[in-house]
């Protein structure tokens, strides 16, 4: 029997600094609020003994998923247990190394230290190869056991019992296999695909059949006979087409292409494509078509020349008419130049007259100014001729000067009129020259165009160009009509051949569809189809194997559960009755498999077979969980001289707690007890009613950098 005497812990879960605990007393109580490090201490014992086995989802403990062993605030993490077996003390030290949850282990026996695999092996020997699963069943009452009972959820409760009975691996594997069966390997999946494929093939055959019937009916309407819609028929038709095209090409004096000539008429799609290509080429290259194109070009040229001729002729006539109209209106150039000359003489005369009057005016003006000056005493004597005239100054000012001014104004007006007339004549001369120039240029262009047309169409000087061009146009249009009729006849011949190419492809498609139909009808009897069915069967078998394995795990799990329950159910009833002091209930435990979830479903009934769960209080459920654990611990043959309880009194009433403590007293006669609790009442009751020697550790003031502050009481 292995007993635990001391624990040293550093950097594990809630612990940071190294702390030591004495577990050599029959009872060790860990007391404190939640989150102060009590569970970390219990977990450290478990981890030191079982290493990474107690981590992760495989443990069946939900809180162990993503469970961190090492405290984040400290670099090292180690747990050291001192255990005693017989009279020998062993020190087991496990240190976290951080890679893939690995740890190093050392065992010290006296002066001898083992490490690594040797140490692991020695440890297993010390604990009789007792498994972690068994440890959870009969040494360490994890707090989830009680919590899941108290929640009253059947699934959680069944989970907890499975874990207590060491069946959580069964449960985990069944869960994942059920998921695979439902979501990944649905046995009929591939068979359904085959059925769908088979349905598709039948549908296709139906469609093809209907297409064949329609195409055959179309061909028969065109006069094809049944035997012509066949392999031989299609070959004959291809040969006919080749011959027809060959004859046609000879008739129009055009060679067939080398590619077509050498094509195999029995390779239908390729031959049909080449035949179509050849027909298109013959249509465009036949000699009549070339001739027709030439005539079209000639007609177009004649039309263009005729338009050009008519345009220049009209322009020429217009310019000539404009010039003649001008001469008629304003005379010839000689007339206009004569008028201009006369105008210039008239202007010159007037300008001389103006100059003379101006001179006279100047003299009179100066004479007046002279007479008005103070130096002239006799104002009646003319300063030029010295003749005397009464009131000479007045005379000069009023009569003579006045006459000069009026005359000058009159001459100026006449001059302006004559100059305007001169300008008008000059403009007419310009206009004359312009019209003459335009006429001359158009005459030259007209001459050039006429010469060009005459030369191009071989029209003599004596012939009328316009008439000749119209006659040529008529001749060519007549030729074009004739050749078009010839071409239409040949195109019709080609149309017929082209239609036969279409029929050729039609027959070919019918034959292909029939071939496809035959293949599709035969496929379900083929080797490939058989292999496909084999794969579907293999898939079904896979699903069957999953079912068989689920069934085997169910059977193993159920059988194991039944064995264990049969073994302990008397003890469970005894403990349950003691803790609850329930007057009515005599417990009977059984297990069934839930066919929906494939998991174990535990029944708690009275001796009459009635389900007792609905009448149990939360305290009763707590008691039931503890009873099962205690029974397993009591009935098993664990090599451990201690039991660990984590928060066992979660929902127990005061009297139930007292009764539970009585049982603990009985157990403590044989095994040391390590009890963790946050329940003040339970703690006080243990202090009062647990009669064995005990040591108390109070967990308080937990801080992230220092871990829990633990005070020891005796």
């Amino acid at each position: 029997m292995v007993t635990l005497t001391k624990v040293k812990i550093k950097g594990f879960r809630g612990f940071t600094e190294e702390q030591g605990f004495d577990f050599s007393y029959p009872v060790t109580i860990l007391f404190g609020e939640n989150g102060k490090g009590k569970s970390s201490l219990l977990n450290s014992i478990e981890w030191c003994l079982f290493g990474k086995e107690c981590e992760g989802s495989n443990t069946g403990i939900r809180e162990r998923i993503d469970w961190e062993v090492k405290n984040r605030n400290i670099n090292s993490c180690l747990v050291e247990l001192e255990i005693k077996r017989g009279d020998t003390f062993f020190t087991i030290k496990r240190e976290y190394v951080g890679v893939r949850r690995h740890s190093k282990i050392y065992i010290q026996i006296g002066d001898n230290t083992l490490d690594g695999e040797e140490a692991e092996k020695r440890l297993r020997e010390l604990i009789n190869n007792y498994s972690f699963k068994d440890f959870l069943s009969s040494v360490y009452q994890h707090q989830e056991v009680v919590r899941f009972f108290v929640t009253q959820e059947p699934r959680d409760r069944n989970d907890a019992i499975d874990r207590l009975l060491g069946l959580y691996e069964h449960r985990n594997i069944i869960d994942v296999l059920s998921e695979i069966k439902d979501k990944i390997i649905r046995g009929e999946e591939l068979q359904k695909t085959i059925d769908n494929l088979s349905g598709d093939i039948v549908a296709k055959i139906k469609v093809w059949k209907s297409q064949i019937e329609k195409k055959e009916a179309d061909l028969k309407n065109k006069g094809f006979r049944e035997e012509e819609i066949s392999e031989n028929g299609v070959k004959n038709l291809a040969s006919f087409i080749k011959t027809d095209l060959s004859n046609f090409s000879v008739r129009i004096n055009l060679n067939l292409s080398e590619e077509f000539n050498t094509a195999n008429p029995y390779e239908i799609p390729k031959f049909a494509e080449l035949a179509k290509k050849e027909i298109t080429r013959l249509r465009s290259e036949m000699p009549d078509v070339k001739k027709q194109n030439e005539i079209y070009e000639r007609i177009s040229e004649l039309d263009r020349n005729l338009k050009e001729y008519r345009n220049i002729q009209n322009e020429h006539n217009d310019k000539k008419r404009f010039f003649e109209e001008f001469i008629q209106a304003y005379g010839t150039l000689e007339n206009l130049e004569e008028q201009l000359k006369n105008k210039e003489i008239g202007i010159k005369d007037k300008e001389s007259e103006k100059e003379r009057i101006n001179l006279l005016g100047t003299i009179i003006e100066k004479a007046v100014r002279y007479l008005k000056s103070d130096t002239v005493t006799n104002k009646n004597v003319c300063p030029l001729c010295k003749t005397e005239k009464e009131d000479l100054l007045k005379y000069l000012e009023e009569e003579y000067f006045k006459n000069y001014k009026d005359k000058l104004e009159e001459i100026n007006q006449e001059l302006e009129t004559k100059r305007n007339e001169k300008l008008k004549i000059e403009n007419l001369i310009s206009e004359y020259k312009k019209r003459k120039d335009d006429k001359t240029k158009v005459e030259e262009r007209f001459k050039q165009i006429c010469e060009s047309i005459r030369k191009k169409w071989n029209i003599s000087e004596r012939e009328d160009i316009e008439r000749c061009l119209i006659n040529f146009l008529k001749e060519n249009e007549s030729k074009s009509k004739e050749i078009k009729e010839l071409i239409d006849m040949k195109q019709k011949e080609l149309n017929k051949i082209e239609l036969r190419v279409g029929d050729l492809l039609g027959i070919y498609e019918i034959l292909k569809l029939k071939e496809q139909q035959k293949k599709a009808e035969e496929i379900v009897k083929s080797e490939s189809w058989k292999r496909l069915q084999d794969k579907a069967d293999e898939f079904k078998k896979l699903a069957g194997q999953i079912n068989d394995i689920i069934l085997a795990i169910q059977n193993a799990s159920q059988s194991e559960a039944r064995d264990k329950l049969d073994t302990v159910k008397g003890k469970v009833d005894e403990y349950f009755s003691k803790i609850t002091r329930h007057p009515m209930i005599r417990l009977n435990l059984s297990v069934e498999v839930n066919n929906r979830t494939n998991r174990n479903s535990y029944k708690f009934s009275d001796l009459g077979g009635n389900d007792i769960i609905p009448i149990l209080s939360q305290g009763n459920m707590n008691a039931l969980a503890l009873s099962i654990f205690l029974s397993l611990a009591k009935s098993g043959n664990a090599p451990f001289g201690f039991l660990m309880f984590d928060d066992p009194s979660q929902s127990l009433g005061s009297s139930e707690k007292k009764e539970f403590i009585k049982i603990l007293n009985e157990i403590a006669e044989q095994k040391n007890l390590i009890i963790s609790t946050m329940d003040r009442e339970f703690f006080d009751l243990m202090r009062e009613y647990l009669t064995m020697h005990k040591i108390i550790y109070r967990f308080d003031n937990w801080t992230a950098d220092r871990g829990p502050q633990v005070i020891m009481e005796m």
Partner: protein
Amino acid sequence: MGRVRFKNKDTGGWNMGIKEDVEKYLNGDDLKAIWNELYYRFEQEGKDGVKRFWVEKADKIKEEFTKIQEDIKRHIGG
């Protein structure tokens, strides 16, 4: 204590191990071999390992199935 049946006589524990327990309920060597391989994957990789184990098998069959199916479709054409 007379009624107590310790599965594992060596350890005195309740549990002999799921691997051996389940094997007793399986018929045929093929199924036993699959179970042993499956359990090995569970031990090594947890539930994901079990999932992968079956997905690999299913994918292999599905892949071969799809290949034959495509051959058939190609053969029929249309």
